[in-house]
């Protein structure tokens, strides 16, 4: 009886599903952020920067685009950004020197009420000016693709 009731409920819902799924996918940030925000090697702030890895993530810790290991790193970076916000520091861009090179974190805009950040790895030490230029360039790409800077 239970199985039959569930089957009939499912069949009743089925015609409405494609429209609902389509709407959900259309609202997803991924469709807006399908474009590449950074050029692999370009001059930012009078300094040539080679972008080795390019990750785009949202303020709720979800990776929009990036290598598979990014899902293990990004949530902790978001926690770090949240802690800095609690300390009154709303990060717009940051340069981190790590044991593997340099990481630039840049807030690039918002999509669907969520903030969007980019994280890129580079071997060259980027100046703050270069980090700012990277953020501005990424914001422009985001706006061109339909997001809000």
């Amino acid at each position, binding site marked *: 009886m239970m*199985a039959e009731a*569930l*089957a009939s*409920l*499912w069949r009743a*819902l089925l015609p409405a599903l494609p429209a609902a799924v389509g709407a959900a996918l259309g609202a997803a940030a991924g469709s807006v952020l399908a474009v590449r925000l950074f050029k692999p090697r370009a001059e930012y702030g009078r300094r040539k920067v080679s972008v080795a890895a390019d990750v785009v*993530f949202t303020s*709720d*810790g*979800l*990776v929009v685009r990036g290598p598979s290991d990014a*899902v*293990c790193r*990004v*949530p*902790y970076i*978001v*926690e770090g950004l*949240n802690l800095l916000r609690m300390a009154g520091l709303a990060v717009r861009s940051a340069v981190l020197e790590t044991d593997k090179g340099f990481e630039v974190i840049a807030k690039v805009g918002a999509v669907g009420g969520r903030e969007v950040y980019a994280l890129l790895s580079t071997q060259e030490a980027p100046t703050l000016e270069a980090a700012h230029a990277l953020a501005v360039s990424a914001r422009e790409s985001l706006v061109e693709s339909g997001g809000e800077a």
Partner: protein
Amino acid sequence: MSEAREMATRVVKRSLGNVEVCVVLTEDGILAGAAGHENPGVDPEALAAMFAVSMSALEFGLADQGLPRPDRMDLKIGDRHFVVRRKGGHYVVAYTKRRPNLGLVYLVLDSL
């Protein structure tokens, strides 16, 4: 402490405050363990029953369409989420804080 209770406690601890309540239930809806449910207004028994029915309905419908069982379900209610993850013969249900670090919640549940 039972294994399920330990798993629920681990989820709450590792989520760094993003998961407020975690409930572990068997696929037939029996509550196996819970953590963080001391919060008022959360009844782990009720959550276990609710999600056992929801997940079995969903799995039945998907199977009817020739689709596999879902690994994860995310239910958004206002600024909070219920994230359900299938783990062995259990479901792990995480009830998040408002505007959670969802990536961290997924990561913690995936690494169980």
